[in-house]
Structure formats: structure tokens, C-alpha cells
């Protein structure tokens, strides 16, 4: 088995979903997560706060600098993520497809190089 990160590719200038749309998405996500759990592939899922809530720590000599904001402003950011444990890329792509169908945003599927 191998771990894959499914990232939700969220456009920075996108129109935020209405409350109804958000409720529908959260319902889809809950169904998907329970399907992943029954298939025995789910490791972790979560939605992230907006990038402007981020704080960056960077080593500088013997010091550590603290900076407010994301480390780089991009047109798209990671809005949420799921980690799954599956046999191969085809299985990961299956869950990636389910995720993009559930959320309506692009999903990046990326293998972990190592995981505990």
C-alpha cells in the first residue's frame, strides 16, 4: 500500500459557494469520507482556512523568523486535503475522481515519497 495526498485546488479569485451550495458540498464530502473509511483507504481529511491566516517560520542563521501570511501568493491554493492509503495510482485516481465530483474543484493526486 502507498500513501497519496489528494489536494483540493482552490482558485484565489473564485466566487465563494453560497450557503446552499456549501451544504451540498459538505454532504457529498461526508458521504465520500464514509465510503473511503468503509473501503479501508482513509487516513486523514480536512479543510483549510484561507491562505491569509497562515504564518511562515523560516530559519535565519541561529534565529527563526516569523512572517505573517502565506509563503507565496498564488492563483490557486490548497483549500483542503485528504490522505489515502491504496495499492497504486489507479486506486488513488479512482478516489481523486470521486473527490472532484463531490467538491466540484480540481484535485491534485500526489504520491508520498515516504510515510510512517
Amino acid at each position, binding site marked *: 500500500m502507498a500513501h497519496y495526498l489528494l489536494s483540493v485546488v482552490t482558485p484565489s479569485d473564485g466566487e465563494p459557494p453560497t450557503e446552499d451550495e456549501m451544504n451540498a458540498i459538505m454532504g457529498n464530502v461526508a458521504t465520500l469520507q464514509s465510503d473511503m473509511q468503509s473501503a479501508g483507504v482513509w487516513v486523514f481529511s480536512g479543510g483549510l482556512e484561507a491562505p491569509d491566516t497562515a504564518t511562515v517560520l523560516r530559519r535565519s542563521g541561529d534565529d527563526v523568523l516569523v512572517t505573517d501570511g502565506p509563503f507565496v501568493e498564488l492563483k490557486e491554493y490548497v483549500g483542503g486535503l485528504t490522505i489515502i492509503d491504496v495499492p*497504486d495510482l489507479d486506486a488513488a*485516481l479512482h478516489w481523486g475522481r470521486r473527490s472532484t465530483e463531490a467538491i466540484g474543484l480540481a484535485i491534485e493526486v500526489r504520491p508520498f515519497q515516504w510515510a510512517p
Partner: protein
Amino acid sequence: MRHVPSSAAIERIVAEEYGRCVATLTRVLGDIDLAEDAVQDALTVALTRWPADGVPANPGGWLVTTGRRRALDRLRRDAVGRDKEHRAAREEPPPDDDTPQEEEGPVDDDRLRLIFTCCHPALALPARVALTLRLLGGLGTDEIARAFLVPEATMAQRIVRAKNKIRAARIPYRVPRDADLPDRLPGVLAVVYLVFTEGHATATREDLAAEAIRLARLLAQLMPDEPEVLGLLGLLLLTEARRPARTSADGARVLLADQDRTRWDRAMVDEGLDLVRRCLRRDRPGPYQVQAAINAVHASAPDTASTDWRQIVALHDQLLALTPSPTVALNRAVALAETEGPAAALEIVDALAERLERYHLLHAVRADLLGRLGRDDEADRALEAALTRTDDPDDRALLAARRRRG
């Protein structure tokens, strides 16, 4: 029965067996790079031993066995390879036996696995094409780079990156389940078709067209129940059959309408027609089958005038329904000019003008239709428009000649 072979005979065997051996060793060793190195090692041994000892009865089995031994030697020298060594050792023959066991030859399914891995949708199309030619066709990186007009370093990087992704992302080494085949097969066929069109575009890259036909034949042999696979092979054969007539004595390109059809390769035409008939019996049409059928109608006519244009229009209607695209609509208009006349065809072409504005053939077709309608000045302007939209020397020569004829 062993005989002393010529070096050309050895090269033919190597070309034939290369893909099989890489495919089987990829399964056995669990790694494409190891498999490629193993086949290279085995070929080096073969090239020194076969000319003296003769070619073994089962050269593929000999290469696989020799390659696996060499790979094991490599892995033993490499502590990191311990895990992979276990895998390969399970099928290792007893160490005291030095003769390769010829019955443990390559497995055909392995090549199908390798094709589906090379053509996985998670890889970009240029990477799929390069990997397929390299691993199944045994073409060198330099040859593939030349064929696709990119620097060798770029092509090498493309191949390394693709192989790395297969390994790191764990693209599986298997034939998709039947349920997934409709999603996965078109990606494989597109690669073979792209290799062919690259080889078809210029006379000097005949080897690519031949390689595409070899790959299509392999797919047809491995998936005889998939009509689109048969359709693709039929399409390639019927197109390739025209190669001898497609270039004039002075090297200029000759259009279908002006070709000397007695110069078509009869054996390829017959095989192509037979494949189209087999597709028709299955009655599960797809884009490659319909394109093969269109070429079959051309192939069945002694000249342009006696071509069954109604049938060709009907097939283009079917193709348009399967793959709606403005270029298919343009080809349909060309056929329609023969059944309904140039005015009706021109109306369709003009309606496509906006979407195909930058495509030189739109303007070339317009020029032809306008000329047939006696609108010579407009025809000349359309030819000029076509000329400014292509850099291909063959296209330009053809268009310039038409302009001179007026």
C-alpha cells in the same frame, strides 16, 4: 536447429524480441530501468555469441533468461536492490545449469501490460509516445528525438521523467479490467495513431509508420475482440498502402485524386479491406473503424470518378456524430462537393471559416470549390491565404503549383 546468422538477421530478431523481453523482465524484476538494462546486457552477450554459436531456437526465451541472470548479478552487487533480488530469484533456474531454459520465454500479456503502463492517462501524450517507442519499439532516444524534432537531451529528460513518475506514483503494471477498458483503450490507440501520422507526414520517416503498424498489429493480436483496435490497424494499412503513389518521380506530393492507384500496395489494401469487413460484422462502430471504412471506399474504387461519394458522405456523417470536429466537417464538405456540387459544399466550408481560419486546408478546399464555380479571383486569393498558413515545404509546393495552373 542452430544456424550461423547474418548481422541483419540478428538485428531483425532483436527488433522483434526487444519489446517482449523488456515487458517480461519488467514484470519479473518489478522495475522498467532494471529491465531495460538487463535486455541491453543480454543483447550484448547475444551479439558476441550468436554469430559464432548460431541463434537459439527461442531467441526471446534466451534473452529473457540471460537478461534476468545479468540483472541478478547487478542486484547482488547493489545492496539497495536486496528487495528486488528476492522477487527475481523466485523464478531463477538452478545455479548449476548454465544453459538458458528456453521454455521460460516472454509472455504476450506482458507486452499488453507494458503498453497500458506506457500509455497511462496520468502521463502526458508526448511522454506516452516516447515511452512506447522506446520500450516496445526498442527505438533509441536519439531516433525518437529526431522523429519528433526535439533535441536529444529534451527527449532523454522526457523519458527519464516519465519512468520516474511510473515508479514514484506507482502506475500499475497491468491490463485494465474490462470495465475500465473503454476509458483506457482510446489513450493507447491515440499513441499508435500519433506515431503513424508522424511517420506518414514525411517520406523520410517511413520507419515510424512501419513501427505504428507493428504496434497496431500487436494490439490486434492481443485484443482481437476490440473492433476499434482492428479499425485502427485497417486505417493504418489502407493509408500506408498509398505511400508508393503519394510521391511523384521528382519527389512532389501527389493528392489522392491524382494518384496512380495501380501503384498502391495491393497486399496492404486487401488486408485493410478484410479488417474493415470484420469490423462491420461486429457492428460496434467507433472513430477508427469509420475512418478505416472511408479509406476502404476509396481503396475499392479504380479512380476518383467511380468512387462511391454518397457512401463517403454517409460515413462522414457517422464520424461527425462520433467525434464532432470542424476538420471532420471540412472533410465531409469535400465529399459533399462530389454528390451535391461545389456550391453546396462551399456554403458548409464558409460556415467553418471562422473556426478553421488558421488551418491552411480550409483555404485550399475553398480555393478548389471557388475555382470549380468559375470564381477565379476569389480562388486565387484563397490559395494565397492557404500559402501563408503553412510552412510545410510539400504543402507549399502543391499550393504554389495549383496557383500557377490558375
